[in-house]
């Protein structure tokens, strides 16, 4: 199908949202679905979606989308264990059949929903936390009656307030003993409401500020069988409350191991043990709620955000702040983990593309480099760069990765790690060699203190054709020099390592800080920016060739033009100028007044993308250095500041309809905002994008090759060769297959399909070709085609029109007919659509 020319580029979020919304939920134990004992699936809220993972394989099985905003809570339907409630900030509660990924019902509540609780005891209602009307930052727990009326979209307006003044966090409310009471914590208050007695007890801990923090409540969990509440505090203590029927004679005991905030608590199914986790990233198992008996699962990698238990107690899982789910066995053994894109608070390395895997490379776990595959939304692997034990402790200054660069073919990787310290700062430059055998990077050279101050930039000389000895690394530092590192070969034939890196040249310019460096495409020139000046050096003799200056702004970024534009050097200064210098005439070619934050050249074409930040919105400009007029402008790209951008080469060039989007043909532009959202620009429509490419492939490939399919394929090929310019049949076939509705219908097992009457309208709609999208030429083609076949079908056509007149609900009938998929009838349907129905309205 020809892409509609008018379609604008859409900014699409990618890279998977974090799992921060709510506690994950294990599917109820159903042995027929899982491969072994225990729950088979794990459900968790991720951004606007609910994701379903297989516990056994860690694979994402289903992505349930439909909410318009962040999903804040998910709970299994206590009465039907294949159904799931989810609440969202968009004010709706949805009931899903998660085995099929189908939304069953949507209840609209109206106000923002911040947490969701569903209990077996309350048959037709769920509890949600909503903001109190008219007051800011005050929330209340309300029970929502879910009406059992038929239909998909329902209003749920029967709200009754249970508790007032609760905290917005879903961790601060817990229901005890099958819903006998509800307990909620906020700041230093604990309130317990007994449903039967309609009694509300309030307890209060005295506000004590200690060195490690205050004793405010952070989370709460209720014992499943006994009257016992566990609360976690900001100073790392856990309090076990009992006897809270009495307003005065309540008791509590304290458990203290955590040295930082207790992030979440969970009781085991029998209530014999309590799990707690926090910033230390250690999962603590307290036996019998006693101080002395405890077990640990240390070094989980990153702070624990949520803990949840499976309903049969065989598994538990922790959600971490770095977008990871860890599944843990009941005997506190690490089972497996599901890792998404780690969004660390500060991405110092920038977005780098690994030339070998085309994966996005950026800071991962502290001290690690993550290789993230965008196609599969999966972390490929994590490379330990710092190789030191990371201490999870707030306020500790530890070494972290700050700069990364790959050589042109990904054979060498240079990393810079840094520990900022006033007295003795640590700085290390490491060079890694890709070992083909081990399929990973191996440390080749470690250079201590390569510069006396921070390293501001580093780049490899990109020369594809040439061999190893031409690889050069340049680092620029705040100590006012840039250094050139080369490979030196060890002359000793018996030495263990034949090559290593050493410094070859040190250059400086008037004692200015070196800020950026960049090699030209052919590697003959090196541009280094020193504050306000750009200097160009010969990369063979290391002579200064010329300087460019555009005062008063300091240079923020520089890059060379590529391919046909290789005679240009682009620079961005922080006083808001984009300058393009001609290297042949050594003169300013053109300049533009733009506050450019990010300058990113496409490695495969001459296009350069620049992102500007003006009056609280980011705009994207794509231009070629040889003409000052941008090729593409997208204003208001997003509201956040864009920090980083990267072009990722496509596996195969995409067919781009419009001249305007030609720059997207070879590579795709990804960018990262300062709220750590990874976004991209896409010309595809939403539906195309939602069905992952891999899945489409899998279905197609899984079809067995039959003689018929071979015959059909041959026939089709012939056809496509015959009228390649028309391409009409081809187009139609493709359209049918691509429709998700058809696919769903054809690939879902019959026993789980809804009734035919329900599916029919969707199916028919999917078969119809929307008129709006068609260009005039295409319509003409179709008419032509139809005229060819009219003779054959004329009889049938008449029949159908007759039927139509008799039947009051013609659509349904057609649906049944088309279910059998006769080709000729499809065409009839299309023709019928063309028939003027306006006369019906006259009745």
């Amino acid at each position, binding site marked *: 199908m020809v892409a509609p020319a008018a379609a604008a580029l859409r900014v699409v979020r990618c890279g998977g949202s974090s799992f921060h919304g709510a506690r994950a939920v294990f599917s109820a134990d159903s042995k027929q679905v899982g491969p072994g004992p225990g729950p088979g699936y794990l459900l968790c809220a991720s951004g606007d979606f609910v994701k379903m993972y297989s516990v056994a394989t860690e694979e994402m099985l289903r992505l349930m989308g439909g909410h318009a905003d962040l999903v804040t809570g998910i709970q299994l339907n206590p009465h039907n264990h294949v159904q799931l409630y989810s609440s969202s900030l968009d004010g709706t509660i949805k009931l899903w059949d998660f085995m099929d990924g189908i939304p069953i019902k949507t209840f609209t509540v109206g106000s923002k929903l911040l947490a969701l609780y569903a209990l077996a005891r309350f048959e037709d209602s769920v509890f949600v936390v909503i903001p109190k009307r008219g007051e800011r930052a005050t929330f209340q727990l309300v029970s929502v009656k879910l009406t059992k009326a038929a239909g998909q979209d329902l209003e749920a307006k029967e709200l009754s307030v249970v508790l007032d003044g609760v905290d917005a966090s879903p961790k601060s409310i817990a229901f005890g003993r099958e819903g006998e009471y509800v307990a909620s914590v906020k700041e230093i208050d604990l309130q317990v409401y007994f449903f039967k007695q309609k009694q509300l007890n309030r307890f209060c801990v005295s506000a004590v500020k200690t060195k490690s923090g205050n004793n405010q409540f952070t989370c709460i969990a209720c014992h499943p069988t006994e009257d016992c509440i566990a609360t976690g505090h900001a100073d790392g203590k856990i309090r076990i409350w009992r006897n809270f029927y009495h307003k005065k004679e309540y008791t509590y005991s304290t458990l203290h191991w955590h040295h930082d905030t207790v992030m979440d608590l969970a009781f085991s199914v029998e209530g014999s043990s309590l799990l707690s986790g926090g910033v230390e990233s250690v999962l603590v198992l307290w036996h019998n709620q006693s101080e002395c008996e405890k077990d640990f699962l240390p070094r989980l990698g990153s702070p624990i955000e949520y803990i949840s238990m499976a309903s049969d107690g065989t598994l538990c899982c922790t959600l971490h702040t770095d977008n990871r789910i*860890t599944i843990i066995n009941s005997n506190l053994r690490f089972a497996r983990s599901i890792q998404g894109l780690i969004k660390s608070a500060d991405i110092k390395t920038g977005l780098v593309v690994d030339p070998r895997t085309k994966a996005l490379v950026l800071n991962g776990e502290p001290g690690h480099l993550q290789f993230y595959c965008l196609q599969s939304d999966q972390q490929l692997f994590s490379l330990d760069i710092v*190789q030191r*034990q990371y201490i999870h*402790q707030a306020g500790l200054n530890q070494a972290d990765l700050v700069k990364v660069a790959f050589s042109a073919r990904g054979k060498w990787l240079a990393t810079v790690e840094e520990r900022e310290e006033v007295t003795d700062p640590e700085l290390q430059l490491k060079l890694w060699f890709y070992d083909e055998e081990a399929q990973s990077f191996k440390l080749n050279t470690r250079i201590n203190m390569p510069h006396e101050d921070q390293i501001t930039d580093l780049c490899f000389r990109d020369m594809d054709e040439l061999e190893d000895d031409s690889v050069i690394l340049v680092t620029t530092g705040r100590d006012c020099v840039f250094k050139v590192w080369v490979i030196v070969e060890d002359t*000793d034939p*018996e030495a263990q390592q034949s090559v290593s890196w050493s410094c070859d040249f040190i*250059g400086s310019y008037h004692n200015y800080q070196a800020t950026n460096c960049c090699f030209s495409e052919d590697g003959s020139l090196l541009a280094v920016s020193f504050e306000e000046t750009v200097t160009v050096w010969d990369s063979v003799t*290391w002579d200064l060739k010329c300087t460019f200056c555009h005062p008063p702004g300091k240079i923020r970024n520089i890059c060379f033009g590529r391919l046909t534009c290789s005679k240009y050097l682009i620079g961005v200064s922080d006083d808001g100028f984009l300058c393009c210098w001609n290297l042949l005439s050594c003169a300013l070619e053109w300049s533009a007044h733009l506050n450019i934050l990010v300058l990113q050249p496409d490695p495969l074409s001459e296009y350069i993308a620049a992102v500007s930040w003006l009056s609280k919105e980011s705009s994207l400009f794509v231009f070629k250095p040889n003409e000052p007029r941008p090729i593409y402008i997208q204003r208001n790209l997003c509201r956040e500041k864009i920090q980083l951008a990267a072009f990722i080469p496509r596996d195969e060039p995409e067919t781009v309809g419009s001249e305007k989007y030609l720059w997207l043909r070879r590579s795709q532009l990804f960018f990262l905002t300062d709220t750590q959202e990874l976004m991209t620009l896409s010309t595809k429509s939403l539906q195309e994008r939602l069905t992952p490419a891999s899945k489409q492939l899998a279905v197609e490939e899984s079809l067995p090759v039959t003689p018929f399919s071979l015959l059909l394929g041959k026939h089709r090929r012939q056809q496509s060769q015959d009228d390649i310019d028309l391409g009409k049949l081809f187009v139609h076939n493709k359209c049918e297959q691509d429709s998700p509705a058809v696919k769903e219908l054809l690939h879902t097992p019959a026993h789980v399909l809804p009734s035919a009457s329900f599916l029919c309208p969707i199916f028919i709609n999917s078969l119809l070709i929307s008129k709006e999208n068609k260009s005039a030429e295409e319509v003409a083609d179709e008419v032509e085609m139809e005229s060819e076949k009219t003779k054959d079908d004329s009889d049938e056509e008449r029949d159908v029109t007759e039927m139509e007149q008799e039947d009051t609900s013609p659509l349904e009938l057609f649906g049944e007919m088309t279910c059998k998929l006769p080709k000729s009838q499809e065409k009839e349907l299309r023709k019928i659509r063309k028939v003027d129905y306006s006369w019906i309205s006259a009745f």
Partner: protein
Amino acid sequence: MATYKPVVVQAIPKLGERITQDTLYWRGDKGGTPVQIKEFGAVNKIDFSPVSPYNYAVTASSRIHIYGRYSQEPIKTFSRFKDAAYCATYRDDGNLLVAGSEEGSIRLFDLSGRAPLRQFDGPTKAVHVVGFLSDKYRIFSGGDDYSSNLWDIPSGTEIVSYNEHTDYVRCGCASKVNADVFITGSYDHTVKLFDARTESSVMTIEHGHPVESVLLFPSGGLLVSAGGRYVKVWDVLKGGQLLVSLKNHHKTVTCLCLNSSGQRLLSGSLDRHVKVYSTTSYKVVHSFNYATSILSLALSPEDETIVVGMTNGVLNVKHRKPEERKENSQKKRQPAYRTYVKGRTYVPKQEDFCVSKPVKHVLRKYDKMLKSFQSSKALDAVLEPPIRLYTPEVTVAVMQELHRRGTLRSALAGRDEKQINLLLTFVARRVIEPRFTPVLVTVADMITDIYQPVVGQSAVVDRQFVKLQEAIGKEIDYQEELLEVLGMMDTLFATFTKKTATYVEEKKSNGLTETIEANMN
């Protein structure tokens, strides 16, 4: 889930000579110093007997001494020369010895007898080179009368005489492959290859300097010539093409020698060095230093002894460290091989349930302590004598790790007199080592901070503080001096640079700073 990562102890490459396989191979016997034997004059030739027990003949002045392998006194002496003797050489079977002399005669000795078996008279001037051809029955010689001669042993007559050289013939060598071929090198800068069957030389190679020594490889295909400062390797089979020219000595190269396997080439020179080259890469892999200029050099079969003769008449005998005998370890009773391989080759069957044994990572004591966050105990562990004395880098690495964790202060605090004394001794001793300075300065700072209130209570601790102060003061003075030198050199280099462009100047001075800093480190 990650496991505990042990503390990284940074290995710093050692400056200076690198220990290679060759260094280990050529290293002398650890206990025994080289044997020095004083001869009567300059030692012009040393030759090892090709048969066991590998005695060697040393030609010096008018005598030929035969030494045994470990004897420092000569076993036998041939002293029937009126003037200087030259070039005493063994025959392949080790029974006969031939030597030239200053008066021009060539004498053939039987090792068991004293008087010469034969005397070849003919040359009018000194004969500096003699040797057996590989058929054992002929002798070649070369002398100051510019001629190269061939003699028949049984009849004691001259077979052929080549008068092709135009200057003194000072060296020669017979081919081991062909009994008719020998080469001679002369001061006329050429090496000539002769075939006894022809009337004239077969090949002439221009060395470019007076040739002091020649050598043929056992295969006969390669020829090595030494003269001037150069050692040149020629491919004989390609008609005398230069293969490689080595210039590793800074004075005339006087002697050449191959090791028993033919993989190493040794050259001795007047610059007092013996260099060992690899014959595959022709790079210097090792070198020996001697007290005076070297005139002759020989290596015993199996490379066990290196004998070097020098201009002042000293003979230096070095015994290479013998290979470690494996018999000692075999004496120890060990479990049978079966015990080790038992079960290793077992292939699990399909229905077998495999239980994998978890790999146990053994942690050092300080790592165990760090793993459980016991800072003080970790520091105690690395202050134990073996670690503190022999691997101070481990101690410093743990200190740095504690500093990173922010617990160094608490680990250092609360120690008694003995422990403070220990800590301060360590710091005072190591703080001046550049690789430890950054960390130990922090440590010293913290110790002074923590124990400031107790200064003056213990004489021992006070003394250590004073020592630390002295060490740091000395280091500061030293650094100041270095900077002064650096400044002087900068001005020198600045005057040398011809280019006016400022950036070049900057580059030079920066480069210099870097190298000097590297030296300092």
